[in-house]
C-alpha cells in the first residue's frame, strides 16, 4: 500500500523528514502573518494627504472635485461625519525626485495617493488628531502632508476667524509635538515635520480675502490664541509636580516670541504655505493646490 509506505516514511526519523518538519514549523507562522497583514498593507501603502479644516470650508467639495476632474459636474456636499479616503492620481508630473515613494507606479508621470477627507465638526476633531498621532512613530510618513482648508470669504468675520485659527493652532500644535519628539530622537530635520498647506478657498466670492491677508489674519489670531492659552487654567488631571515641565510643549512656534508667524514652524521642519484658490466658480481654481500636493508626494 502506498499510503502505509508513505506513513511509515513520514514517521521514520530521517534527516529529510526532520528538516522538512522544521521547515514547515518555522514557515507556517511567517506565512500566516503575511496572510493576515496582506490586505491591510496593500491599502495603506499609498502616501496620504490629510484634508482638514473647519466646517463649511469646502473640504468634501475639493475632494470630490479632485477625484472627478475639473470637467465633471460639481457635486453637492453636506456635513461630513466620517473620515473618508479617496484614491487619486496626480495629473501633473510629480517633480520631487528624492521622495522614496513606497507606492507603486512612482516611475511614471502619475502618482497615486490617498486624500483623506475629514469632518470639520468640533466634536469629531479628536479623530483627526488621533489619526495624526497613530500615523506617527513607526513609519516614515504615511501622512505626507496636511492641507488646511479655510473659507477666505468668512475669515473677515471675527467669530469664524477665531474658530478657524483655533483649529489651525491645535493642528499645528499636534504636528509640532510630533516633530519635536522626532527631533529629540535624532531624526534629520527635513524628515521630522509634515508640510502644511493653508488653502484659502472660495476666492471666487467678492468678499474673499486674498492669500496674503488670510495669512496675516490667521497669524495674528493664532498669536492671540497662543497668548490666552498660555494664561488659562491648568487642565484637570495635571498634578502639582508636573506644573511647569510641559510649558514648552504647549507653546506653538518659537518660545516666548512676541508674534507668531508661519515661518517659525520651520524650526520643527514644518513648512507652511498659504495659497489661494477656489473649488467652484471663476478664479484661480485648484491648479496651484494640485501642484503643491504633487510636489510633496
Amino acid at each position: 500500500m502506498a499510503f502505509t509506505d508513505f506513513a511509515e516514511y513520514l514517521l521514520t526519523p530521517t534527516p529529510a523528514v526532520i528538516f522538512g518538519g522544521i521547515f514547515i514549523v518555522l514557515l507556517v507562522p511567517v506565512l500566516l502573518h503575511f496572510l493576515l497583514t496582506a490586505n491591510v498593507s496593500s491599502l495603506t501603502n499609498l502616501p496620504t494627504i490629510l484634508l482638514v479644516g473647519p466646517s463649511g470650508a469646502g473640504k468634501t467639495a475639493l475632494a470630490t472635485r479632485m477625484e472627478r476632474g475639473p470637467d465633471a459636474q460639481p457635486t453637492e456636499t453636506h456635513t461630513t461625519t466620517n473620515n473618508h479616503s479617496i484614491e487619486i492620481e496626480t495629473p501633473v508630473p510629480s517633480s520631487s525626485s528624492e521622495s522614496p515613494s513606497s507606492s507603486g507606479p512612482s516611475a511614471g508621470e502619475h502618482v497615486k495617493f490617498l486624500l483623506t477627507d475629514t469632518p470639520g465638526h468640533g466634536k469629531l476633531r479628536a479623530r483627526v488628531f488621533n489619526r495624526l498621532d497613530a500615523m506617527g512613530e513607526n513609519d516614515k510618513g504615511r501622512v505626507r502632508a496636511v492641507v488646511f482648508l479655510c473659507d477666505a470669504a468668512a475669515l473677515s468675520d471675527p467669530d469664524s476667524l477665531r474658530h478657524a485659527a483655533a483649529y489651525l493652532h491645535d493642528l499645528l500644535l499636534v504636528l509640532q509635538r510630533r516633530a519635536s519628539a522626532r527631533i529629540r530622537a535624532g531624526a534629520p530635520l527635513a524628515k521630522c515635520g509634515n508640510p502644511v498647506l493653508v488653502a484659502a478657498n472660495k476666492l471666487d466670492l467678492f468678499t474673499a480675502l486674498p492669500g496674503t491677508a488670510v495669512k496675516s489674519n490667521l497669524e495674528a489670531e493664532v498669536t492671540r490664541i497662543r497668548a490666552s492659552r498660555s494664561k488659562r487654567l491648568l487642565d484637570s488631571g495635571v498634578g502639582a509636580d508636573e506644573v511647569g515641565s510641559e510649558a514648552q510643549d504647549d507653546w506653538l512656534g518659537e518660545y516666548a516670541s512676541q508674534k507668531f508667524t508661519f515661518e517659525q514652524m520651520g524650526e520643527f521642519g514644518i513648512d507652511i504655505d498659504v495659497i489661494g484658490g477656489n473649488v467652484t466658480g471663476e478664479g484661480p481654481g485648484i491648479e496651484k493646490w494640485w501642484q503643491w500636493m504633487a510636489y510633496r508626494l
Partner: protein
Amino acid sequence: MLDAFEIITTSGVVLWSRTFTPLHANLINNFISDVFIEEKGANAATRDDQLSSTNPPYKSDQHTLKYTFVKELGVIFVAVYRSLLHLSWIDKLVDNIKTLFVDLYGDQLKKPNTTIIECHGFDEYFDQQVRELEGSASKGAAAVPEGALPQEEPTLSGNLGDEPPLPPGLRYKGRALNGANSGEEPSAESTPNLSPTTSRPSTPSAAAAHLVVGKPGPGGKLSRRARKMQNAGASHGAVSSGDEAAARRTKPVKTAKKGRKWTDDGLADEQDDVQLDYSIPSQTGIAADASTAARSSAVEHVDSSTWGSTTTKGQFILKDLDDEVHDILASAKSKADANNNKSTSASGLLGSGLNTISGLFRNVVGGKTLTKEDLDKAMKGMEEHLLKKNVALEAAVRLCEGVEKELIGVKTGSFESISSRIQSAMEASLTKMLTPTNSLDLLREIDAITRPGPASLRTPRPYVVSIVGVNGVGKSTNLSKMCFFLLQNKYRVLIAAGDTFRSGAVEQLAVHVRNLKELTIREGGHVDLYQKGYGKDAAQVARDAVAHATAEGYDVVLIDTAGRRHNDQRLMSSLEKFADFAKPDKILMVGEALVGTDSVAQARNFNAAFGATRSLDGFIISKCDTVGNMVGTLVSLVHATGVPVLFVGVGQHYSDLRNFSVKWAVEKLLSSS
C-alpha cells in the same frame, strides 16, 4: 408633497438627490450635525439599520425630515417635506428607496477609496416609487366611500363593452395606458383575483386608472384617512404580489419569495407559505381559463404582453421597471424574513459545532464578526462598570446601546478581543460626547467682548457670567475661584450679589472679595462687590450691576444667584426673568460630582428654565477631589443636555479650578479601579 429626497454618504457626498422645491442650504447640514454628530435629545441612538418609521422625525421650523441610515455602507436617506402636510406613505418611500438603492448600487458603495457612484438610472426607480405610493394612497382614499364590491362590475363591463370590436388598437391603447399609469398597475392587476370572470389584466388597469385619476385625494382627505389608507395599501401589496407570482409561475424561487408577503406577521410556517403559493396560481389559472373560454383571440395578445415582459423589453420599459422594483423589494423582504427564521432556529449539530470552534479561534485571533449575542454579555459588564463610576442609569444605558449598535457587524482586528474592542469603542463614544462643539477659550472671548477690534463695529461692554445651581453645590466658591483666575489675568471684575434671599450670602461674598483683593492687589487685580442687601429682586440687582459695570469700565461681571431646588417651579420660573434682565454672555451651572441619578433631572430642569431662546452654556463640576475616579456625574449632565463641561473644581483653594480635559475624564471613567 415631497420637497426633496437626498441620498448622502457619511463622507458628505450627495450620491443622488431630487429637489422639488428649493430648500435652505443649511437644512440638511443642521440635520446631519444634530442627529448624527451631536445626537441631540430624542434623536439619539439612531445610528443603525432600522426602518425610517422607527426613527423619530427631525423637525426644523418649516420642514420635517424622515430618514434612515445604512450603517455598513454609510449611506443616509433623507426625505424632506413641509411639516403642515401629513404624508403617510413617506416612511414606506424612504424604506423602499433604501432597499432599492442598496440592492442596485451596493457593490459600488462597498468599493474603498472612491466617492463616485454611477446612479444616473435611479431617477426612474424613484419616480416609479413616488407614483406608486402616492397612487396607492389616493386610491385608498377614493375607494373607501364607494364600497368594495359593487365598484368593480360597472366599470369593468363598460370597458368590456368597448373593447372587443377593435383588438389591435385596443391592445395598443391598453399598453399606452399601462405606460402612463404604471404606478397604479399592480393595484389594477389585483382585480382579476377578486372576480375570476373578468378577462384581461390590462382592462381593469385602465379602469382603475380612471378611478384614480378621477378622484385624486386632496391633502385633507389623506390625513383624515391615514389609517384606512394604510390598510388598503397593505392588502394591496399582498394581492398584487400574488398576482405577480402568478405571472411568473415559471420561476419557483420567485413564487416562494412572494409567498412571504402573505405571512407578514412572520410567525407563519413554511407549510403555510407553500399552500398559499399554490393556491394563487391555481386561482389565477382559473381566471385565465375562464378568460380563454370567453375570448380566446384577445387573450392571446394580453398573455403575450404579460408573459413576454422580457422579450418585449424595449416597449414595456416602465412595466419592467415596476416588476424589477417589486422583485427587489420582495426579495429583500424575504431575505429579512429568512434571516429572522435562521436566527430563531438552531442550525445543524455539525454546523453549530464548527461555528463554535471557529468562533473560539476568532475570539483569540481576531477577525470575528460581532453579533448581538457576542456583545450582550460584555455590554452588560460595561454598563455595570459605568454605573459603578456613578453614571446615571439612563446615560449608561444610552451609551451602551450606542456602542452596541455601532459594533454589531463589525470585524475585530487581528489579535483583538471583544472586550478590548468594546473598550475602544466606548472611549471613542465618550470622547465624542464630552468634546464640546466649540472649545471655549474664556479669556479670548472676554477680550473679544471688552476690547473689540476696530473692524467689528461693536462698542465695548463688560462680559457677564452668571452662575446657577442647586443649594450647597458651591456656587459662591466656584465664582470666587473664577474671579481669582480672572484677577490673575489682570481683569477688572465686579461681583454682583444676586442671592438676596439666604441670610449671610452677601456677607460671604464680601469676605471672598476682601480675600481676593488682598491676594491679588500686588499683581494689579481689581475686584469689587456690588450689593443691594436682602429682599430685593435678584433680576433687578443683576441688571443694575451690569449697568454699573458698564459705566465704571469693569471688564467682567460675575453674578451669584440664590440656590434653588430644580423641581420647585416657583423658584425656577424667576430664572427666565433673570436671564432676560441681566443678559449674561455665559450661564454656567454648578453641579457637584457627588450627586447621583438626580443630576440628569437637575441639568434638564435648569437647562429648560431660561426660556425657549436661552439655555445653559456650560457646567462647572465641583468637588471632583472627593469622588476619586467616580466622575460619572459629568457624563450624566452632558448626556441630559448636550451642554459641555467647562471647569472642574478639584480642591478648597482659590487656585483649585481646572480646565476640563476630555482625555482625563475618559481615562478616569474607563479605569478599572
